[in-house]
């Protein structure tokens, strides 16, 4: 059963300079117990989509339901079913971790005793019990995010929205956050998460929807998307620019290697995986071509974008006023 269903969502931010179609006809459905990752660069419309689905923002056109309830008409009923953890840890810095969770629990209409118990339970689960009675402004970035996620879970929501849950975290905190999210998923949570990192969507989501300029331009599992992009590739940076052509011949006799003169970088699809890399290295070695760098590279969000839209992932601040007025150059995909 689809817990989230959206049809033709349109949201236009009007400003003096220009109108920005932050959502330009978005259809979505998320089945119960699954994880959908919305993948896209800043300004693609991911946050706007989350804000519409969590009743924070009214769409101009289209409709969306959560468990059959309309997000605009039955907003209050929808709010009882959802938990939201936004891009910035929205916690009260002047309250302790425990007080924050108690407050959000009470506002979720839990009884004061239930809210207290639930707060203690979540503080333990998210490894915050030592800091529970410290004011949240003393927390590290990772701790704030964990507290924010705990706040989203306080009312035992059926459905969880995580808007860029790891943006701005250091690598270690990011892995910690992934663990916490994975636990939720194992326990059967239905989850919609947004991210700028293919790696993150890959690690957490069952299915990925790629968002660009307010539209969903591709959807599938991580493997399906990577196949669309062409899977892994081998990259070689040749030391001597004069040998670039020769090296390209060696690593891809069929002439499929792409050559970047400026960075002296050769890129070729690597259907053969690691073995193909070994072959390439051996051939280069036989010809005594010096290389500065060589490696097997997984597709990044940039590659996915390039393959799907023909333009690179553009980065623009995703605020309501300035959401990515990118030009429509991506029709050639």
């Amino acid at each position, binding site marked *: 059963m689809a817990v989230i269903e959206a049809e033709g969502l349109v949201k236009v931010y009007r400003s003096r300079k220009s109108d920005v179609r932050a959502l330009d006809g978005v259809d979505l459905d998320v089945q119960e117990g699954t994880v959908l990752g919305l993948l896209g660069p800043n300004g693609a419309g991911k946050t706007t989509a989350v804000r519409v689905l969590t009743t924070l923002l*009214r769409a101009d056109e289209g409709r969306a339901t959560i468990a059959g309830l309309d997000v605009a008409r039955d907003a209050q009923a929808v709010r009882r079913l959802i938990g939201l953890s936004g*891009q*910035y840890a929205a916690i009260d*810095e*002047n309250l302790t971790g425990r007080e924050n969770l108690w407050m959000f629990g*009470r506002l979720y209409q839990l009884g004061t005793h239930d809210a207290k118990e639930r707060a203690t339970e979540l503080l333990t689960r998210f490894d915050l019990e030592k800091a529970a009675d410290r004011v949240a402004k003393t927390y590290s970035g990772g701790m704030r995010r964990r507290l924010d996620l705990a706040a989203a879970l306080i009312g035992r929501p059926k459905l969880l929205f995580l808007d860029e849950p790891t943006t701005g975290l250091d690598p270690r905190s990011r892995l910690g956050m992934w663990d916490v999210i994975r636990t939720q998923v194992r326990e059967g949570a239905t989850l919609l998460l947004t991210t700028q990192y293919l790696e993150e969507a890959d690690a957490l989501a069952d299915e990925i929807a790629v968002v660009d300029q307010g539209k969903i331009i591709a959807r599938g599992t991580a493997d399906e998307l990577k196949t669309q992009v062409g899977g892994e590739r081998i990259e070689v940076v040749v030391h001597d620019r004069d040998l670039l052509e020769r090296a390209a011949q060696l690593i891809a006799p069929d002439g499929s290697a792409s050559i970047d003169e400026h960075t002296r970088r050769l890129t070729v699809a690597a259907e053969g995986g690691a073995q193909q890399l070994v072959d390439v290295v051996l051939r280069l070695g036989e010809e005594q071509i010096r290389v500065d760098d060589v490696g097997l590279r997984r597709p990044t969000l940039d590659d996915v974008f390039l393959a799907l839209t023909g333009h690179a992932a553009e980065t623009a601040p995703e605020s309501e006023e300035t959401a990515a007025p990118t030009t429509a150059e991506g029709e050639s995909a």
Partner: protein
Amino acid sequence: MNSLRIAVADGIVISWRNLKRVPRIPELAIFAILQSIMFVLLFAFVFGGAIPLPGGGSYREFLMPGIFVQTLAFASVTTAIAVADDMTKGLIDRFRSLPMARSAVLSGRTFADIVYNIGLLIVLMLTGLVIGWRVHSGVLDFIYGVLLLLFFTYAMAWIGVFLGLSVPTVEVAQQLGFLVIFPITFLSNAFVPIETLPAALQPIAEWNPISALTGAARELFGNPNPFASNSFPGEHPIFMSIVWTIALLAVFMPLAIRKYRAIDR
């Protein structure tokens, strides 16, 4: 009336969290009090000697009600800063994503402001007592005066909510304090008798809500009140205080609520 019960319960939770801020950031309350005390000292001891009161009386007793009103007028700035802070930190969004009473964010906010300003008022009255301010009226008049001041504070808090939801950053909210509240309080009878102002400014000062409140407080506390002469607002400061406060509430409460509702546009 289940929804009313939820509205009250949620409002109390929001008030609780707003008041928790006071002991957690003691600087806020301390600076607010120090600023007022600085004005007390400045006017009572530095300028006071040079300001003649028509009809005589103690300048310090004349001054204190002006200080009360000025301090309470700053409630709007304090509120605006706090609301702007909640907006930029995403807390308002979090509240809006919860199944809580929609009214609670604003009702809890403005109720907490009243409680906070009662605290400020008590400290200022004690300061006044130390420098020689006295209440010469009866208990009922005193209570009436305090209630008028708090009613005014409530209106100022709603102005603050509206401003806080309208400004882009916390810093802008802070600037408003200096650019708006200071001039308004100086263009009144809070520190000097209106008769001493240039003739062109006198009507403005007479109709200034700050003057009405200050005049009302002086009258009800039995302090020297040279304002009470020759103009309609001067003769009816209590009536004018009530009219002004209701007018401000009637304008800014709906504006603030509409602004809050329009966040989802």
